[in-house]
């Protein structure tokens, strides 16, 4: 054997297979779509939406998702998990009977772990009487539209594995993100915009250092056409939308036709589905030249809308502006709208920084839910709010009457869901008096993912993709639909 053969490139491999060599062997190495493409047969898909044949598995309650990821791990103790008894324990060492020797992230070497109560008050809101921290006055007004899950728990204790877990169902990188699975399974209701759009916004907190990586919205082993498309934060969410001066619409079209024809010849020679993706992306780019300016034209949004989302909604790239953009994307039937807001990692100076985070996000978050509701979109749009884990009841660093920090806490944290077939004005689960352990109704990350898939009409055990010899799914081999969340 020629030693060079040991260094087959991807294209060489596809080139061999296109000449009829070893399709079956290839199929065991690569995914269904790759092998199917190499064998010249595509998977059966709906002609209009591109949904896989047989999907959705049953009638969906929601057709789209807006996932408001609060990156860093918002404290449950100041937001939704009210623990009045902590005042009594303020400053005392957390009882061993509560902590049970569980690992901590950054407070490893800390000599004492003193209990810190919330510096901020709580009150009950709505007909449901849900407890909400006083830092979230706007969210408090919409609690009757929410199902608050107080007993989320995760396997990961550090940001990167935890955020990768909640987005992809696995702590190590390489699996498809949730949005990619939806895009792969259900296709798109709008052929002029990507099915999976990602919007990032920067922290309001002063201490904020957790990065975000594009693999969080990657397609993993699914064909790359299903990965999220990140819009930029500035005034131009998509750069270079305009054709160069002197290029007429006809010139642009015939140029793209030539690119397509030539790429198709390469695709035929090598059978690499990445080339098919490239062709599809050039066509999507062409359609986005019209659809994105229309999406971004806020001139017809009335003043009252900007007031509702708050002052930052006029500033492109902020969380508030992204919430408004999320509504506009939802109106245009974009399948999965993923927001990331940075800055929720309050190891220190929690009272200051958590207040800043809440002030920056509370109003636009509530406005988004209200706005969807008044347009009748909340019925079939699932909104999800939350971070990758919670925070410890004990203080990280020095506890004083006015200042403290909190370390990572994977054992319980709060998220909420709204719309899309979920209960309105409900609370799921209970934690102990220290908000340290789940007492009843635990909801794992895989349970939440299974439930989100269920609401979109997908049996989470049946949406699979064969890769490296086994069928993968978002929920791996875990997850149960949380029936108590369903309306």
């Amino acid at each position: 054997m020629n030693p060079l053969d040991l260094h087959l490139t991807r294209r060489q491999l596809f080139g061999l297979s296109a000449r009829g060599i070893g399709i079956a062997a290839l199929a065991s190495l690569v995914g269904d779509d790759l092998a199917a493409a190499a064998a010249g047969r595509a998977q059966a898909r709906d002609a209009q939406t591109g949904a896989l044949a047989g999907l959705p598995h049953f009638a969906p309650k929601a057709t789209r998702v807006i996932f408001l990821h609060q990156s860093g791990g918002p404290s449950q103790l100041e937001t939704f998990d009210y623990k009045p008894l902590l005042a009594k324990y303020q400053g005392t060492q957390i009882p061993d009977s509560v902590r049970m020797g569980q690992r901590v992230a950054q407070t490893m070497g800390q000599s004492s772990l003193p209990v810190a109560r919330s510096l901020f008050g709580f009150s009950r809101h709505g007909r449901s009487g849900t407890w909400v921290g006083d830092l979230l006055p706007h969210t408090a007004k919409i609690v009757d539209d929410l199902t608050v899950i107080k007993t989320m728990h995760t396997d990961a204790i550090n940001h990167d594995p935890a955020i990768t877990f909640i987005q992809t169902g696995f702590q190590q990188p390489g699996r498809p993100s949730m949005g990619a699975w939806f895009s792969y399974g259900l296709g798109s209701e709008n052929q002029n915009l990507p099915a999976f759009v990602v919007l990032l916004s920067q922290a309001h907190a002063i201490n904020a250092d957790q990065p975000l990586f594009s693999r969080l919205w990657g397609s993993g082993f699914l064909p790359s056409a299903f990965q999220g498309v990140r819009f930029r934060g500035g005034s131009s969410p998509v750069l270079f939308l305009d054709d160069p001066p002197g290029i007429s619409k006809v010139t642009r079209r015939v140029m793209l036709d030539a690119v397509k024809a030539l790429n198709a010849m390469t695709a035929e020679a090598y059978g690499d589905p990445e080339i098919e993706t490239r062709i599809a992306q050039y066509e999507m780019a062409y359609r986005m030249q019209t659809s994105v300016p229309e999406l971004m034209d806020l001139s017809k949004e009335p003043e009252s809308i900007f007031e509702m989302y708050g002052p930052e909604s006029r500033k492109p790239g902020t969380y508030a502006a992204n919430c408004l953009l999320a509504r506009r994307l939802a109106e245009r039937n974009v399948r999965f709208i993923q927001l990331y807001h940075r800055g929720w990692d309050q190891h220190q100076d929690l009272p200051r920084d958590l207040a800043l985070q809440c002030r920056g996000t509370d109003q636009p978050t509530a406005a988004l839910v209200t706005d969807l509701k008044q347009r009748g979109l909340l019925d079939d749009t699932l909104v999800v709010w939350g971070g990758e884990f919670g925070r410890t009841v004990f203080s990280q660093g020095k506890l004083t009457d006015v200042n403290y920090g909190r370390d990572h806490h994977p054992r319980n944290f709060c998220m909420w869901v709204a719309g899309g077939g979920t209960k309105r004005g409900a609370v799921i689960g209970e934690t102990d008096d220290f908000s340290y352990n789940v007492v009843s109704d635990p909801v794992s990350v895989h349970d939440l993912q299974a439930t989100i898939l269920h609401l979109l009409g997908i049996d989470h055990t049946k949406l699979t993709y064969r890769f490296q010899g086994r069928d993968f799914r978002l929920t791996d081999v875990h997850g149960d639909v949380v029936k108590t969340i369903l309306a």
Partner: protein
Amino acid sequence: MYTLWKRTVPPASLSTFDAPDREKCAARRAHTNTPLQALTLLNDPTFVEAARALAQRALVEGGRDEKSRLAHAFRLATARKPSGKEMGVLRALLKGRRNWFRKNQAAAMTFLSVGESPRDARLDAAELAAWTTVASVILNLDETITKQ
């Protein structure tokens, strides 16, 4: 070629092609394949200018004959000669755009003014504009963009 790179903010066009933001180490760069990349390669003035420069090289260095010029441009980008079918697509595009730019001289001039470098004034504007569209197509091929 030089560009401004702020410490944690890569130039926008490079971000579109997965440049790490350098906030943390990146052991391996992510690979994406998005419509945003298509828009950058088609419309970013840097790449429009690059297409014009490639067109100029094809016309100046590629011999006298249209086919040898097209083959030269194609080979500079892909390291191989175009097949007969590929040559057919390129020639059809060139012919159509040549006719159009001859009737739309002003459009040719504005198209050729994109970028920092002046156009090669020895070359006919409509001809160079038509060749620039062909060069842009070559620079946008999957084979050109993808390292194999």
